[in-house]
């Protein structure tokens, strides 16, 4: 009896705690942890966002539908624009999707998923919504590579539509280009429309290219103008390729 008493004195508290833990665990098990979840719910209530789960799912579904609608609408609009664009051109073009960009940083190129099987030839003129985009430089049976007008090596003879002052244009990456004038004092002002000139050896005349953004008349050796290309080259998804009649002199600017 004495030894039992001494054992209880020494281990009683510990035994009590163990039984308490076991007991409460058992209760929780029998009630499917109701207490835990109740407490959890109380604690987490301040962090809860307002709409219930059903509402949230509904909103998500609606958002998904809206997004799908927007995508379809923009696609539809783009295709319609392309259709109108093709129709407004005298010659028949080949509509081609852009599937890739330049594989290195120094060249401004895009890859189209139409090639010689679809009738695309080297030297073809590539235009998008907004105007001239570039020129076909390589063709494989089902892809073709376009050198964009924004590439520094692609030089285009251009003219100011309003005053007919001529010059040539070099690309400057992104959607800017620099136009150098042939005249010392050209009649040009910001906002003027720029298009390909009849002196251009690679492009047919009269293709719209962009607008004059700023003019630097004191630049040596020739006055310069910065041109903003009107085709959104970085955002293009579709372009139209026209056969080119001016491909006799391939290696000159």
């Amino acid at each position: 009896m004495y030894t039992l008493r001494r054992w209880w004195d020494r281990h009683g508290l510990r035994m009590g705690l163990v039984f308490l833990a076991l007991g409460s665990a058992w209760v929780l098990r029998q009630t499917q942890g109701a207490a835990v979840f109740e407490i959890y719910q109380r604690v987490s209530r301040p962090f809860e966002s307002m709409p219930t789960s059903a509402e949230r799912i509904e909103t998500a579904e609606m958002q998904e539908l809206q997004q799908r609608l927007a995508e379809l609408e923009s696609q539809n609009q783009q295709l319609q624009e392309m259709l109108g664009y093709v129709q407004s051109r005298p010659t028949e073009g080949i509509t081609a999707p852009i599937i890739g960009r330049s594989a290195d940083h120094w060249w401004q190129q895009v890859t189209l998923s139409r090639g010689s099987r679809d009738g695309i030839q080297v030297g073809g003129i590539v235009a998008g919504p907004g105007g001239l985009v570039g020129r076909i430089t390589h063709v494989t049976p089902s892809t073709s590579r376009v050198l964009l007008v924004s590439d520094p090596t692609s030089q285009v003879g251009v003219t100011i539509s309003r005053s007919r002052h001529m010059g040539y244009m070099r690309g400057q990456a992104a959607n800017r280009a620099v136009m150098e004038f042939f005249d010392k004092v050209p009649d040009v002002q910001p906002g003027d429309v720029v298009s390909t000139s009849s002196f251009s050896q690679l492009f047919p005349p009269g293709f719209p290219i962009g607008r004059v953004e700023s003019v630097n008349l004191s630049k040596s050796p020739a006055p310069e103008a910065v041109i903003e290309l009107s085709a959104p080259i970085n955002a293009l998804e579709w372009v139209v390729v026209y056969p080119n009649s001016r491909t006799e002199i391939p290696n000159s600017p």
Partner: protein
Amino acid sequence: MNWVVTAFSVLLCLFILPTRLPGMELLGVGPNWLLIWVVAWSIRRTVWQGAIAGLVLGLIQDGMTAPHPTHAISLAVVGMLTARIQKQRYIQEDFISVALIVFGMAVLAETITAVQFSLQGIGASAYAAHRALAEVWFYHQRIALSSAILSSLWAPVVYYPLNRWWQQANAVEPSQT
């Protein structure tokens, strides 16, 4: 089997090169996947192996963009230097140092290309289509930095699985390589 996987990984890098996935672009410049691959390859190999890998991938990239100036020189130099660094044991092998190597090598590769463009501009006649010297170096600043940052951030994606595979392949067949 080892060669098949290696070739497949190169192919994957080539396919990803012309795509511009969202989040992979900085000022219109994406990561230089081939450079990352060359660094991952040469980090545990000899100078010659690195040079040859750089040469091969550079030639492929020439085919995908434009052959003048060539990418083979810059990638071969990258391969050789990466292999040299490994010899000197200055740099341990983990993600951070691989990212650092890729950063330095990307800047180096773009600089070599820019030098090539400058030489081309000096040699060319005034009427041929070439890039002006000032433009080349201005553009170099822009793309060298963004390409280096992006490439070094994406380097582990290529480096880790490839390195694991090569380690395992070497463990199975120690006689190879």
